[in-house]
């Protein structure tokens, strides 16, 4: 049996670069997994591989930082609040509509 198990690379979510000589494909692979990485949902060996890649690839490092910032901004996005008058008026309109149906 030959050890032609390179096909295992096809769907494996990890990255397989060891040195700085990574291909663009690895960056694209990383891009697919960035949210899972940010949300801490990946197994530790894949996280390690990603960190290694980030250390060697400034583009991906900046990319992931900006995606992380996007998530942070969304989390802190301010939302307006209702006034008590609006709350009361809306309740009345809902109850009127219930009566009308």
């Amino acid at each position, binding site marked *: 049996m030959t050890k032609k198990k390179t096909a295992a690379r096809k769907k494996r979510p990890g990255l397989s670069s060891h040195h700085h000589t990574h291909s663009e494909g690895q960056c694209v692979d990383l*891009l697919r997994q960035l949210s899972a990485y940010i949300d801490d949902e990946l197994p530790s060996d894949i996280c390690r591989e990603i960190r290694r890649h980030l250390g060697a690839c400034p583009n991906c490092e*900046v*990319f992931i930082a900006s995606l992380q*910032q*996007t998530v942070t*901004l969304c989390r802190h*996005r301010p*939302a307006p609040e209702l006034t008590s008058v609006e709350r009361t008026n*809306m309740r009345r309109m809902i109850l009127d509509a219930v009566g009308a149906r």
Partner: protein
Amino acid sequence: MRAVASKKPPQRHARQELEGFDRLYRDHVDLIYRYAHRLCGETEAAKDLVQETFLNAYQGLKDFRGESKISTWLYTIASRACIRMRRKRKGEPEHELSLEEFVPTSEGEFRLQIPMDGLSPEEALQNKELREALDQAINKLPKKYRMALALHDMEGLSAKEVGTIMGVNERAIKSRLHRARLFVRRELSARGITQHDNQKSGGSRS
């Protein structure tokens, strides 16, 4: 012979129903308004959505069995109502986001940045331009992506809960969420907002 179905006098029944509704409304209207505003992006449409949600909730309250959290139930009603209302208004087809469109094609695209160096998110969002860019980016998202982003990243629900609300599996939610984030990132980065603008609009509020 007349039907013997009435167990409670109708007036008492109606009063109980109203009390139940009032409790539900009082405890959750702010939550649903916040969510509605995140989905609609503006006040009047958000209020319409809140009213539609609670109207449906009033009618469904007697059948609510408590199989999910009451907030999950309300989020679900609001999400469905939002889809119905938008369809009625625009009839726009749902645009799909593919991952390929987010693959940077130049080094510059990889390195687009969001101007929040050294700032807390609250401070960064004082920048009116950044805040507006964020609102616009989110409003431009097709609604199923916007919903996933609003429920997960803004309302803080788990992917599983978001899946229950949107009626799809967790995997689909994670995929939508990822695309939504990439979309917003690209929109924000592409605006070229600078730190300089930040100081300008942070200091003097117009």
